[in-house]
């Protein structure tokens, strides 16, 4: 059974739709990554999944049951670390213990609070009695995470957990989140711009743009202005004088083109390119490994645009894919999706 099932969700702020998801589900015990540009709806989606907001339309099912904010079945099992985490105006100890008090769960409270603080790399002796205002930004963020970990939630939702913290704090937070997954099987849903980290730990990564889920994996987005080439096609001149061509139905300059990495084909020489495809010549700039799925991501820079494509480990092994190497990407113009 799916842990979450989203059914025709639309969420609006002041009557402006900011998120629209027809159908999406998440599986229990998995780590799911959310990526996408700022304003794509990642935080809104996490707030809905964390049941801190109610969708304007549609229904969210949790563990097969209809669920809303204040539903008894979800309050004790789901917790969200918001992007701008807020510490209550009380000591670190009381901040971490707040969720336990709300649940009237006082068993071994001190030990549990200490353990949660240790998990995020904060010594209980030094930090437990500190007031909320005597913490650095990174420490405050870690206290906020400890306040979630102490609850041992079934679902831990993390909104940009490593943003605005130093490298050491970021590392500790990443380890603590993984501990929750390994130790008590928490399902994690994480939004982050740290694509490498998501690739390292996630079973699935979904890409959001303009409040919609575009699909699995990193997407390449191309923004206007667009040049009309003929009745069906429009193009964008890239900085190295190549043209990205796509089938474009309207003249809307604000339209954004996205291309599914699965629709991109990589070629090590220009002899291999099939008929009817558009081709762009670029340079392979970086390689990444999705540890869980074993897929290898390749980033190809064409001018200033970076295209991401994926290869299986077997395909990757058959070619000489080295960063710095010239490479050709081909795609069919009809595979370009438009978002308005």
């Amino acid at each position, binding site marked *: 059974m799916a842990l979450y099932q989203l059914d025709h969700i639309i969420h609006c702020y002041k009557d402006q739709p900011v998120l629209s998801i027809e159908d999406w589900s998440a599986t229990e015990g998995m780590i799911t990554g959310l990526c996408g540009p700022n304003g794509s709806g990642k935080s809104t989606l996490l*707030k809905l999944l*964390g*049941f*801190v907001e109610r969708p304007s339309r549609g229904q969210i099912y949790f563990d097969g049951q209809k669920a809303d*904010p*204040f539903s008894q079945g979800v*309050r*004790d099992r789901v*917790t*969200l*670390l*918001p992007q*701008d*985490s*807020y510490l*209550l*105006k009380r000591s670190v100890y009381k901040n971490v213990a*707040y*969720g336990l008090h*709300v*649940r009237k769960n006082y068993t071994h409270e001190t030990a549990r609070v200490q353990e949660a603080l240790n998990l995020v790399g904060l010594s209980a002796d030094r930090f437990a009695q500190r007031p909320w205002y005597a913490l650095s930004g990174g420490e405050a963020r870690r206290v*906020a995470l400890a*306040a*979630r970990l102490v*609850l041992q939630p079934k679902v831990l939702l993390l909104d940009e957990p490593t943003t605005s913290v130093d490298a050491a704090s970021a590392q500790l937070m990443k380890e603590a989140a993984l501990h929750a997954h390994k130790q008590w099987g928490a399902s994690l849903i994480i939004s982050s711009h740290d694509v490498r980290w998501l690739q390292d730990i996630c079973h699935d990564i979904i890409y959001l743009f303009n409040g919609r889920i575009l699909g699995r994996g990193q997407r390449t987005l191309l923004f206007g202005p667009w040049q009309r080439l003929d009745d069906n096609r429009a193009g964008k001149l890239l900085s190295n004088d190549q043209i990205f061509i796509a089938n474009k139905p309207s003249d809307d300059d604000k339209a954004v083109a996205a291309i599914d990495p699965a629709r991109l084909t990589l070629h090590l020489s220009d002899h291999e390119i099939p008929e009817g495809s558009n081709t762009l010549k670029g340079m392979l700039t970086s390689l990444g490994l999705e540890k869980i799925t074993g897929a290898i991501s390749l980033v190809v820079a064409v001018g200033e645009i970076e295209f991401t494509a994926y290869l299986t480990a077997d395909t990757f092994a058959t070619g000489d894919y080295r960063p710095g190497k010239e490479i050709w990407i081909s795609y069919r113009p009809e595979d370009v999706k438009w978002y308005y």
Partner: protein
Amino acid sequence: MDYIIQGLLQAFQLLFSGDAETYSAVAATLIVSSYAMAASLLFGIPLGFALGHFRFPGRRQVRLIVDTLLSLPTVFIGLIVYAFISRQGPLGQMGLLFTLPGIAIGQTILALPVVIALSATAVESMDVNLRTTLLSLGAGRRQLLQSTLWEARHAILAAALTAYGRVMTEVGISMMVGGNIKWHTRTITTAIALETNKGQFALGIALGLVLLLIAFVVNGSVSFLRKK
């Protein structure tokens, strides 16, 4: 200048010798202001919280009225309360005219808009992430309200202090509703007004000093509480 210095010296004599008339006015002030503050906080904090926290039709209009009432002149409140509790008034049977509870009613009316308006502002200006944080940690509806109120405690304390300042220093209500009766309803401020009219600066200055001391003690206590 000499008469001011003389007045100051006599004021200290009155205070340190335990002058009964001086301390009667101090006691009357403390009693009425305590009643008024207890009532205004009891009603004002929940109403202010509701006004700041909930969104309901007519909220802006209610807010406008409360903000306008911040400027209520004390003599006008005195007049209205007098009209209600004087013998021919609708509450005349209760015998509240020229009593400390009568003054306390007037001072409650004075303090209530201050507590409501400043509490509402305190709740409105809470961090937008507070609600998300509380809900994400599993707070229910009641806990959400309680914790929000607790988070706003410093600003609400400031609201209470501001209201206390107005109550302690007002003259109009105490004079009109209390009647400035010696040993009975004479408060610090009405006594100062009377003694100044009589040219008796010593008692006026002594009472003024006591007023300042009370304000100092109250502010010191609140400052201590804020660190908690």
